[in-house]
């Protein structure tokens, strides 16, 4: 996904603890997220979810499956 694009979370895959923590930070299935920024050198990404900016490590972010919203 490109910077500035929006998407709907399909689901998060990966470890039990990670999926759970993501859900608690508001990244639950069906939630709309906006990709604000991609960090340099394969660094973290910054997303907006429920009105809050969150930084997710690339490894973490790659486990969140998102369906882009057509604009």
């Amino acid at each position, binding site marked *: 996904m490109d910077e500035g694009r929006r998407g709907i979370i399909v*689901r*998060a895959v990966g*470890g*039990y*603890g*990670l*999926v*759970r*923590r*993501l*859900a*608690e*930070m*508001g990244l*639950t*299935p*069906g*939630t709309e997220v906006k990709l604000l*920024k991609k*960090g*340099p*050198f*394969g*660094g*973290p990404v*910054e997303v907006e*979810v*429920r*009105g*809050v*900016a*969150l*930084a*997710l*490590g*690339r*490894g*973490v972010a790659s486990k969140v499956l998102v369906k882009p919203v057509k604009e």
Partner: protein
Amino acid sequence: MALAGNANVGKSVIFNQLTGLNQVVGNWPGKTVERAEGNLHFKGYDIHVIDLPGIYSLSAFSIEEIVSRDYIAVEKPDVIIDVVDASALERNLYLTIQLLELETPMVMALNQMDYAAKKGIRIDVEKLSKKLGIPVVPTVAIAGRGINELLSTVVAVASGEISFKPLKIRFGAEIEEKVQRIQEVVEQKLPNLCAVYPARWIAIKLLEKDEDVVEKVKRYAGGEEVLKCAEKLASELEKMHGEPSPVVLASERYSIASKIAKEVTVIETPPKISWEQRLDAITTHKILGYPILVGVVLAMFSLIFIGGSFLSTVLESLLGNVSLHIENILTFMPHEIVKLIVEGVFGGVVAGVTIALPYVVPFYIILALLEDSGYLPRAAFLMDNLMHKIGLHGKAFIPLILGYGCSVPACIGCRIMETNRERLIAAFAVILIPCAARTVVILGLVGRYVGLHAALALYILDLALVFIVGRVAFKVLPGEPVGLIMEVPPYKKPALKAVLTKTWSRTKDFVYIAFPIIVAGSLAITALNITGLMGYVAAGIKPFTTGWLGLPEEAIIPLIFGVLRKELALILLAELVPLETLSPVQMITFTLVVMVYVPCIATVAALVREFGWRKALTMALVNVALALFIGGLAYHILSLLWF
């Protein structure tokens, strides 16, 4: 009463407004979590306030969350103030809902109303209060607005003047049915646990498979039966939704939060780009971000170390005179006792005042500034990728950089990591980074007598060590590694008062913990020296010193004294052995040992303060072993190569 809320919502600002300087900062018993409490008088009431750590949830993910919910459930504060960021209502309500599950009287402080207004968000306060069934007080804590109303409301709630009916959170039918079934079993089988935690809450947590609650339930007779029932229902729920049960419940809570937030918020025209957003764009820019980061780090360094060494020199000369005076006053006493008092006790105090304090205080000020302004998460954002190489994530960058100046603030800085595991890995790495004092030894001995290239090689070797130790600690320490999931709060102007109060309280706490340890250590080493035991020690480990490390017998003494302060090791070595008589290999070996072995006593004190005795001593011993091993190895390998 207790303050609860997400991180970055202005909770500590409200706390400072309430208590002023009348506060104590410490740790929660046995935990590396800051605990701030204070007292205030209001309308004839003496109110004890406790500032719970900033959290997003009440699950068992982090130590902060467990500390908070146990405090609320066990200590049962009269009132909880739920501090909420009005500009991110939905996310904040997630915690509010969980606080409601704990069934404690609650007042909401709807904070940062000004910032929300700037973002074009308007909240119907009365409607929100009605929806949640709790009083809601709008505040702008930074400006002190709404604090008095908040206190009046809290007092009115605590004294029963206003009664209200907090919203009973009800989940969707299929979840609700399961919660109630577990609740019935819990009430029947675990009456004792229900006296502490609400039965419904236990039921919800069991359905979520909360590790901490599961452990608690196991300890009771009949607990197994309850767990079996909960597990069955949880797996039914998971089958139905195709997701882990905690995710199902989190989604459920968020949909409640989202519904309430939508009903009470009006979003007006999106605002124009503010200076905060522009600053954010520049400081996390792909290219520009890095020079700015370097600039901030350099500025931080110079402030801490120029300011620190200035303060240190001033204090040292002041205290030097005092020590002469004490010696003169005490001449009537036996010489040994005078030495013990002056060098041992007073010397320890001097070491604390001149090494630790001058660096710790500026560090605390800058840490508070970085925390309150919101730069810290942005630095972490930029460094995340690099830090992953040593098994940590972006946030660890801050303590590591600080380590080059002084290990003491760096060790304390490790608490910005979320979990104990991450804190320990960071601390292990931090104490291996050569601090300013070790730099003195590296440059003063190897740099001067062997050559700068050798000194540089030592630095590189040290970085490699940090990398290896980081990786080993990453593998050895139990627990799940945590990727970066971090809120990036908007930039804010830090409030001077909040920064200074934070600094003052933290410094006070540091002095209480660290000084006794420093003085005791100093006293012990002086006693060893006066009684002549030091000579025996040196003679006793002579085979090791000369055989394995290849150093002159006396060289062990400066190494022992180096525990007090590391640059002392070089000064003493020069007194005992003419430096020119040492071979380059011996110099390198000596410096290597100084670089790696047990951190100075002030650092050990900081480690004890952060991690407790057991872990601090383990770390120190691991380092000594590592230093002696590497030192010896270097001696033998280099001797083969050199000659």
